[in-house]
């Protein structure tokens, strides 16, 4: 009764060649349900067809790694019998179609990846990209995404402690929502997505299955047109309350020896969890769909297998412990139903109303998805955009300064993060806005720091350089709070990989991440690739986002970005260079996305970070803040804004480079630190010892930010005016007119 024709194959996002290889792998023509299983598991989203050959080049080993790529999340040993479980994932496509639910289920999905491994999630961070807020549609999308993240995270009770937001035209029809989550687990109580032991029961737990989210994974593997309304039913609907119950029930089950393995039902739902859990051990699985809790009537096997209804998990329990598992879920008012068992022989067999509707080898589904080395070609536009036209020096630096401070990408994001509960679980030591989020570990002097970074403007002009800088900046952010990086997760957002130019950008970016991670000796333990970020044929800027986790040995030593007291010495670590390419300054003042992104010497960068860390660990610094978007001027302003009483500063620079590059250029490997006058000498001596360029550039104090270049004053702006420009920019765009 085969209903498979060319059209069906195409509608399932598979090529004819892929179809032939499915037929030869399973030794028969698949029926429609079997075809659907392959279509989601071999989609770009689940199968990493275009990216796998490159991702293999990322360093995945390191002394702290307990689990590298390939599981639900990466795991690192942080000592004292504890491990961190963390990962980042994109929910870009759903968030465009339905911003609130798209973002909410992005949070829900990544949290399940964390607690399915036995870790209690303790932090969420988000990297968001939107089109300019001048367009009301973008305002609506941003408002929806932010409320969605808040709605889910606040209710389930996991703090959203940081992240980043940037704006660019290319994200207007394709916002990016990348959600990072981290959990804390006991090292000897980690669980994996595996089913083994013939006859061990397979339990379905959590919410009931409905028709929502069918083909979500395939949707994330194709371009969009303007007409996406009809895709709305593909977006799942989140229920954070249900997930909270699921979280508590799962952790309770995991606290004693009741289960063999567990996997969440995320993308591709029951299909992904059954096949992956079996494939990991070489086992097989039999399930009966009539036993699956359903909230709609008349669902077909195809729909049940592909549903992406949220807040569900699949558990392989120990045979003799089923009743205990069920009792725990009953306590939390959740379904826990035995729907099948583990078998030998490596096949997935699915029954429905007494008939066998699926019989396929799980290995083919999970492990034999084709990998492509797609054609890659350097985009022709790069040559054009790399040349900068003549840039006139600004007449009024104060005006330019205010303008940059009020650019939404630079401006204060409190409007966003105060909608997120960022203090729940009482671990948040640094509130959002610091260089990195810092969380204490209860009962220990140790703390965790984490940050998300990515600069798509650099990556657009040079993907390899952009990626290297993203890694460097994330590590620098950690260094500024006093944390040493221990591991990386990445979210790679790109256009359609079938376009050679996009494939080239991807290849270059992954190469850049790999180089930088090797220099910093940090493993990439997993992540997510989001291709097909194209709408109406236009690709987004390549946007690699890096999530890096670090540890602080003594929380008492952690350092904040804000100036601490009047009269402190301000010391610049690193060098100012004559670089303007890819800067916020060029975008804001000249509407230009051009030039060559800042250069970066990874070895020099590492020396700066190591030196900053040593200074912090020795207790030499009052504050530290990295120089990034908006350059030295914005960095100094942020140091002033984060000081308790809006302390100003007075800076003297002698560099013989363009004054605009000096103030607003984004040269890398720079950190502004402050220290008491008494200790300035120690800091400079340490820098010298560590072969880091460092010099005294000024003093904290006063009510103004004053910058002199070769004795000529070019900036003098009251901190309160600069603060106002920075603080009110985003809220003013959302002000309700009275």
């Amino acid at each position, binding site marked *: 009764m085969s209903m498979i024709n060319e059209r069906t194959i195409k509608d399932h996002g598979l090529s004819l060649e892929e179809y032939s290889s499915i037929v030869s792998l399973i030794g028969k023509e698949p029926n429609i349900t079997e075809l659907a299983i392959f279509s989601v598991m071999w989609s770009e989203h689940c199968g990493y067809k275009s990216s796998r050959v490159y991702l293999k080049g990322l360093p995945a080993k390191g002394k702290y790694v307990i689990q590298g790529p390939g599981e639900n999340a990466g795991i690192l040993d942080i000592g004292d019998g504890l491990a961190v479980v963390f990962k980042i994932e994109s929910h870009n496509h759903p968030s465009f179609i339905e911003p609130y639910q798209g973002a909410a289920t992005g949070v829900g999905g990544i949290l399940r990846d964390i607690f399915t491994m036995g870790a209690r999630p303790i932090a969420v961070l988000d990297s968001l990209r939107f089109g300019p807020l001048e367009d009301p549609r973008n305002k609506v999308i941003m408002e929806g995404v932010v*409320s969605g993240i*808040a709605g889910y995270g*606040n*209710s*389930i*009770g996991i703090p959203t402690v940081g992240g980043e937001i940037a704006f660019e035209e290319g994200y207007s029809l394709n916002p990016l929502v990348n959600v990072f989550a981290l959990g804390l687990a006991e090292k000897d109580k980690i669980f994996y997505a595996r089913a083994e032991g013939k006859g061990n029961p397979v339990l379905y737990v959590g919410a009931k299955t409905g028709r929502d989210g069918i083909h979500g994974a395939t949707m994330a593997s194709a371009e969009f047109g303007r007409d996406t309304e009809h895709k709305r039913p593909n977006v799942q609907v989140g*229920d*954070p*309350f*249900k997930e*909270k*119950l699921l979280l508590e029930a799962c952790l309770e089950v995991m606290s004693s020896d009741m289960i063999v393995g567990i996997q969440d039902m995320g993308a591709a739902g029951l299909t992904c969890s059954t096949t992956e859990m079996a494939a990991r051990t070489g086992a097989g699985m039999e399930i009966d769909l009539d036993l699956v809790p359903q909230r709609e009537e008349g669902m077909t096997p195809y729909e049940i297998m592909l549903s992406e209804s949220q807040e569900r998990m699949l558990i392989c329990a120990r045979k003799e412990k089923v009743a205990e598992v069920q009792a725990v879920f009953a306590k*939390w*008012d959740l379904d826990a139903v035995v729907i099948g068992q583990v078998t030998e022989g490596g096949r997935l067999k699915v029954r429905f109303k007494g008939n066998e509707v699926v019989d396929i080898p799980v290995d083919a589904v999970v492990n034999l998805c084709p990998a492509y080395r797609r054609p890659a070609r350097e985009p022709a536009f790069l040559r054009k955009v790399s040349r900068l036209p003549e840039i006139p020096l600004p007449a009024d630096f104060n005006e330019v300064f205010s303008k940059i401070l009020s650019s939404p990408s630079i401006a204060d994001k409190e409007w966003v*993060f*105060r*909608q*997120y*509960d*960022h*203090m*729940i*679980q*009482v671990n*948040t*030591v640094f*509130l959002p806005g610091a260089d990195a989020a810092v969380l*204490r570990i*209860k009962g220990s002097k140790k703390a965790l720091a984490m940050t998300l970074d990515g600069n798509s403007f650099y990556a657009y002009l040079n993907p390899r350089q952009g990626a290297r800088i993203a890694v460097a900046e994330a590590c620098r952010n950690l260094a500024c709070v006093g944390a040493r990086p221990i591991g990386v997760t990445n979210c790679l957002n790109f256009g359609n990989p079938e376009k050679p130019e996009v494939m080239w950008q991807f290849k270059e970016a992954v190469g850049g991440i790999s180089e930088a991670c090797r220099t910093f000796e940090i493993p990439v333990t997993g992540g997510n690739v989001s291709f097909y970020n194209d709408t109406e044929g236009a690709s987004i800027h390549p946007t690699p986002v890096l999530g890096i986790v670090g540890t602080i040995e003594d*929380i008492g030593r952690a350092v904040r970005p804000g100036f601490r007291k009047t009269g402190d010495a301000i010391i610049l670590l690193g060098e100012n260079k004559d670089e303007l390419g890819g800067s916020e300054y060029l975008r804001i003042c000249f509407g230009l996305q051009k030039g060559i992104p800042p250069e970066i010497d990874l070895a020099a960068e590492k020396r700066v970070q190591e030196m900053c860390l040593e200074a912090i660990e020795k207790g030499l610094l009052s504050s530290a803040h990295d120089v990034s978007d908006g350059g030295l001027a914005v960095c100094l302003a942020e140091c002033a804004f984060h000081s308790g009483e809006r302390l100003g500063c007075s800076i003297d620079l002698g560099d013989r480079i363009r004054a605009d590059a000096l103030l607003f250029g984004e040269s890398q490997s720079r950190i502004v630190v402050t220290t008491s006058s008494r200790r300035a000498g120690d800091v400079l001596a340490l820098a010298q010892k560590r072969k880091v360029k460092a010099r005294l550039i000024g003093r904290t104090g006063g009510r103004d930010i004053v910058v002199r270049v070769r004795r000529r004053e070019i900036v003098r702006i009251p901190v309160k005016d600069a603060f106002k420009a920075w603080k009110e920019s985003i809220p003013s765009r959302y002000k*309700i007119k009275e």
Partner: protein
Amino acid sequence: MKFGVVMFPGSNCDHDTFHVLRDIIGRDTVFLWHKNHDLQDVDVVVLPGGFSYGDYLRSGAIARFSPLMQEVRAFAKNGGHVLGICNGFQILLELGLLPGAMLRNKNLKFLCQFVHIRIENDRTDFTRAGKKGQILKIPIAHFDGNYYAPNEVINDIRGNGQVVFRYCDADGRLTDEANVNGSMDSIAGLMSAKGNVMGLMPHPERASEALLGSEDGQIIFRSLIEAIENKGRKSRCP
């Protein structure tokens, strides 16, 4: 003395409150499961923050029907101390143990931030360790914290000294700006006429450790300990 922290499905500040009471304040603390009828001989029942039952209906509207709440109601009637924090405050309003209701915040957004509140009455079992006029730095985190009650109720609770905390600025002034959620009369915390039940929107458990930015929240827990462990040393109110 012993604290009991109620766990509803969807409570999410239960562990935080438990941590502070046991590990920071250093008193016996137990969890009280919503499906039980056993208050385990606690001296103070704490209804913690969170999203009980998801709060898909009015915040706290379902939690009031939990089996345990019958015992809590009786406990309160007999003069037992009940402290409702955030969602716990909303539940106390739904239960009718405190007057009034919560509306959405005036800016129609969830708000998580440090605010300042002023002790309006220090002759209570929840504030006796502080001083009238004292300003506390303490976080809020809620969507529905915009306190509302009819004018006659407001007049009554003012007259009875039931207003325990008001939102204020860092210098203790009551301003519109400081009243971030738009509460009537800037009310942040309110107690029953008998003075044994109090609800407040801010989270004292989040302001109990210097490392996290404030220890001011401890005043509330320490006041309760003082009231219960040294009964009668300071005159009860009102």
